[in-house]
């Protein structure tokens, strides 16, 4: 019986603490934005979850390539973990964005390039799970999954460029301060601090969830092997 590593337990606790700290920074520490008011506080978690979402998708594409070269199912477990965790975080990003958009843009959803790209990205990774569900052979499932994450990883940036052909209204907060008319805002020092804290917190949570999911993947495999042994 494989016991849970102590480091992972510590990381679990750390994740819970960090989400508390990030919540404090977002809701209390950061100053209230002048024009949008309290709703702007959604922003800190919005960018935090978006960051780990993108991180996982890129990771899945890279790990997919490694799997295709090495053919070791260990890499597939990492890939699945990354896509699963990221799909969930990305969904949270979209939901939080919607909550912000309702008062800021006066609508829950609009077909803006970033929103559209986000929706398509989410659909690509949902399709990934449907693809995996349709294959029984674990080796083939891993191979197809790797190919599809690779395709997705390349397609998403091109999709973003393609949709950029239309005009965007999504504020560009990081690296561009001329977007005030679209609901953008320039950040004060404390706001930047709160954002960085949120980045750090979600990165810790992401690593923790990834670790747990990878561990679960290898346990699942062990159970499968034991089942086979019993039936034989």
């Amino acid at each position: 019986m494989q016991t849970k590593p102590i480091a992972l337990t510590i990381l679990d606790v750390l994740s819970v603490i960090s989400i508390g700290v990030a919540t404090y920074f977002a809701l209390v520490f950061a100053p209230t934005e002048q024009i949008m008011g309290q709703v702007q506080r959604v922003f800190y978690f919005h960018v935090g979850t978006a960051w780990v979402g993108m991180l996982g998708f890129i990771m899945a594409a890279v790990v997919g390539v490694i799997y295709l070269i090495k053919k070791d199912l260990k890499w597939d477990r990492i890939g699945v973990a990354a896509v699963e965790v990221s799909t969930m975080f990305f969904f949270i990003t979209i939901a939080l964005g919607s909550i912000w958009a309702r008062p800021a843009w006066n609508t829950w959803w609009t077909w803006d390039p970033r929103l559209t790209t986000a929706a398509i990205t989410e659909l690509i990774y949902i399709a990934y799970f449907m693809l995996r569900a349709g294959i029984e052979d674990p080796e083939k499932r891993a191979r197809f999954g790797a190919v599809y994450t690779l395709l997705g990883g390349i397609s998403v940036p091109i999709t973003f460029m393609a949709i950029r052909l239309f005009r965007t209204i999504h504020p560009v907060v990081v690296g561009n301060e001329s977007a005030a008319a679209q609901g953008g805002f320039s950040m004060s020092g404390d706001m930047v601090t709160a954002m960085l804290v949120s980045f750090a917190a979600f990165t810790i949570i992401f690593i923790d969830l990834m670790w747990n999911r990878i561990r679960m993947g290898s346990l699942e495999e062990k159970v499968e092997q034991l089942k086979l042994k019993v039936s034989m």
Partner: protein
Amino acid sequence: MTNETNTTAIVQRPSFLKAVMAIVQKDLSAEFRSRELLSAMLVFSMLVILIFNFALELNIDVRRTVTAGVLWTTFAFAGTLGLNRSMAVEKDRGCMDGLLLAPVDRSAIFFGKAISNLAFMLIVEAIVIPLYALLYNETRIFQLEFLGVLLLGSIGYISVGTLLSAMSVQTRTRDVLLPILLFPVAVPVLLASVKASGGIIEGLPLNDILTPINLLIVYDIVFIAISFMVFDFVVEE
């Protein structure tokens, strides 16, 4: 290395181009004998246009803006029909195993299937476009640029579609899965095609539609290259 030591026992390997053309010829002659796939794609395309006619009330004002969208939606749907079928016949009758056993490069199989799929799609387009022009008195679609965009868009769509259909036929859900896998990945090609062909129909200067056309070219090159590289992993047993 055995090639040098034991030349007499080695059968001459066909050249890459020959292998590709052999597969294309096989697909085309099989299709022209049965005409299953083309007739299904054609009838389906006409039905989609018919449904659009009622769904969108395609009168003269609406048509000006939606022609490109209607045509591309039709071709995308008809395309998945063809892609599914063309891979399914290989799988069902064990032809794929035969192809894989042939002493040719695996990517030759990819290019062969992709070119024959592209041929089917272009044949369907060649019939649907004049029919659409006739039915809706839309002669502006007979422009060289429009046909060029049609070709570029079809190449991109088919290249990634051929790869994904090779994957989807090997799954339990098969036909259902292909559009789900293909559409989100093919969004850029559909978007750029609609944007470019819409601009051509509206008579915009070439400068204005250069961005989507460039994007189409980039997409085509990137996705042909990727599909070519990973096809081996998709068909290996």
